[in-house]
């Protein structure tokens, strides 16, 4: 009897120590960069986002402190079923701790549920839908960089206040387009404007002439583009062809990325107003980072705001892990730690993560330069205004996130 008690005690003691060891000293981390690697969003996220995650790991200096951090990447092809299948495999087979990037709101929301179910960590940078931190918020999710609420309350609001009081929407027919149209509509009507019509077009449409003619016929002052990536570039190019801007209507590129401006060309893109939270040429720190980044990109492109968000998000995640002293492999716990620490990095400056998972940082209103103003291959933007983070993103009082009702 005595012997069995002793061995029982010994066993318990052993179990406690090994569990403790695993808790305190497990310094392995596996990061999964899930993105559109080859389609219309590949340039704004894609391989560049994987690179950003790698640079974040290198810059964290954790390898020298005995951490072992691996990165794998996957292509969700803009299909929610493929995205969730990859996410499940990553958690079940590859033992991934955190999934980053995930552009395409449709895929992002689907993956959000998987990560919550598997208790992983989700640092989304690429998706736009504000639902990620609102109606569909999750204790495992941090949404970096931007969202549809922010886009509507910056670009949208500025245009309405400048006299653009009637709107026609060209909307990508999926979760993202719907969210952006909804959030922008709210801003337009709240500021006394009205919506005179809209068209929902399929994702990845090569020809917009038919939709543009409808927008033209609507006589709306502003044609709001609730689409992204290749769809936006095609719309803007073809709108120029159909003389829409010359006819007195104004295009509102609600979401425009650096790579889109490159693709459109300054000749056509000049004068467009839009909002981003990161631009490579903001200050010495962003320029230094972008130079290192571009040197490693095959296309020599500086980072887009999505890629910058992946970098900043991973840096903050690793800081939280370091503060925890090890990787607990417990998503909720890590995200709570991330929320408890203020964010600060070279790319977005100071900020914070709200209880609903939304990262708050400044947003910048930009205007595309004219060809004569541009002095280099990626010198595209001039800053026209800055919106502080607490005014740019959803106020907590308006958020329907269940995490706030504790």
């Amino acid at each position, binding site marked *: 009897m005595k012997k069995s008690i002793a061995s029982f005690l010994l066993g318990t003691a052993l179990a406690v120590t090994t569990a403790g060891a695993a808790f305190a000293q497990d310094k392995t981390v596996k990061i999964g960069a899930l993105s559109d690697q080859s389609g219309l969003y590949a340039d704004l996220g894609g391989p560049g986002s994987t690179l950003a995650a790698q640079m974040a790991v290198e810059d964290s200096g954790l390898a020298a402190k005995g951490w072992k951090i691996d990165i794998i990447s996957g292509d969700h092809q803009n299909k929610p079923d493929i995205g969730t299948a990859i996410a499940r495999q990553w958690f079940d087979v590859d033992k991934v701790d955190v999934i980053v990037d995930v552009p395409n709101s449709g895929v992002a929301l689907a993956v959000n549920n998987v990560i919550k179910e598997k208790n992983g960590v989700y640092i989304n940078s690429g998706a736009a839908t504000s639902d990620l931190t609102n109606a569909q918020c999750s204790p495992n999710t941090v949404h970096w960089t931007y969202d549809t609420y922010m886009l509507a309350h910056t670009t949208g609001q500025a245009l309405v206040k400048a006299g653009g009081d009637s709107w026609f929407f060209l909307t990508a027919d999926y979760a993202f387009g719907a969210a952006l149209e909804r959030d922008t509509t709210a801003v337009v009507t709240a500021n006394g404007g009205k919506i005179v019509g809209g068209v929902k077009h399929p994702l990845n*449409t090569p020809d917009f002439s*038919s939709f543009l*003619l409808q927008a033209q016929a609507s006589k709306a002052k502003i044609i709001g583009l609730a689409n992204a990536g*290749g769809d936006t570039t095609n719309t803007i190019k073809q709108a120029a062809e*159909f003389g829409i801007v010359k006819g007195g209507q104004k295009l509102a590129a609600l979401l425009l990325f650096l790579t889109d401006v490159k693709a459109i060309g300054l000749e056509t893109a000049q004068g467009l107003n839009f909002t981003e939270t990161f631009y490579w040429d903001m200050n010495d720190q962003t320029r230094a980072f972008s130079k290192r980044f571009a040197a490693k990109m*095959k296309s020599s492109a500086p980072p887009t705001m999505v890629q910058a968000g992946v970098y900043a998000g991973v840096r903050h995640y690793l800081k939280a892990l370091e503060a925890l002293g090890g990787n607990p492999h417990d998503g909720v716990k890590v995200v709570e730690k991330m929320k408890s620490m203020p964010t600060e990095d070279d790319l977005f400056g100071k900020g914070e993560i709200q209880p609903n998972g939304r990262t708050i940082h400044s947003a910048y209103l930009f205007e595309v330069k004219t060809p004569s103003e541009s002095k280099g291959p990626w010198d595209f933007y001039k800053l026209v205004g800055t919106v502080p983070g607490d005014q740019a993103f959803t106020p907590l009082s308006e958020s329907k996130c269940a995490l706030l009702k504790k």
Partner: protein
Amino acid sequence: MQALYAQLLVGLINGSFYALLSLGLAVIFGMLNIINFAHGALYMMGAFVAYFLLSLGGINYWWALLLAPVIVGIFGMILERTMLQWLTGLDHLYGLLLTFGIALIVQGVFQNYFGSSGLPYAIPDQLKGGLNLGFMFLPVYRAWVVIFSLVVCIATWFLIEKTRLGAYLRAATENPTLVRAFGINVPRMITLTYGLGVGLAALAGVLSAPINQVRPLMGADLIIVVFAVVVIGGMGSIMGSIITGFALGVIEGLTKYFYPEASNTVVFVLMVLVLLVKPTGLTGRAA
């Protein structure tokens, strides 16, 4: 009603691309019996060649219209000589798989170097601006695309159906041994035909460069629709593919007006209906 005219015209513009591409596919299938899945990639190469000619060599759009089809056509002929010719007499599936593989490789290489957002190509100065037709503002370049591709389509049809060279070609597909007995170099004719089909794809690529982005996946996005056009028109029928190309462009344009959400699928719905009623396609001959 005015809006409807405008949509019809816009549909005709897209139809021009469908017609040019499906025409090349029909020529290749009719003469070589190869389902050329690389067609989209070759169309994309046409646009890229135009871009390179302009940005590296300063060679303008008009020369690109001539040079790009020739350059890409030669690339096509090399493909035919080195790979496709070994598939003569085998099941269609082999040709389809081989060309599909070629398409993936070509697209992958371009994507690796140029990303996915694409490169801008300006409309040539002579074709800038637009015409006010009363019911719509028609960009001059779009009008040019419709007229030019109509001319090219009819010229190709004439070449194959009405000239002696075309007669040789058609005879060579019916009975290569007999045609060879008359002293005609059949393999060379087949190679040239493939080159012609590919050249048509490259020509469509140059035409579309100023309208769409010059990007690696521009062909992949289009080729599936074009295959549906060929199936609806009837595999291998030259006139069938031209008429169906334009007609489907118009139907798609109308769908964009009446029910935009379905504009990506309407062509395939039509394809299913046609296959159910007339499995050889609208103008196809029985296999």
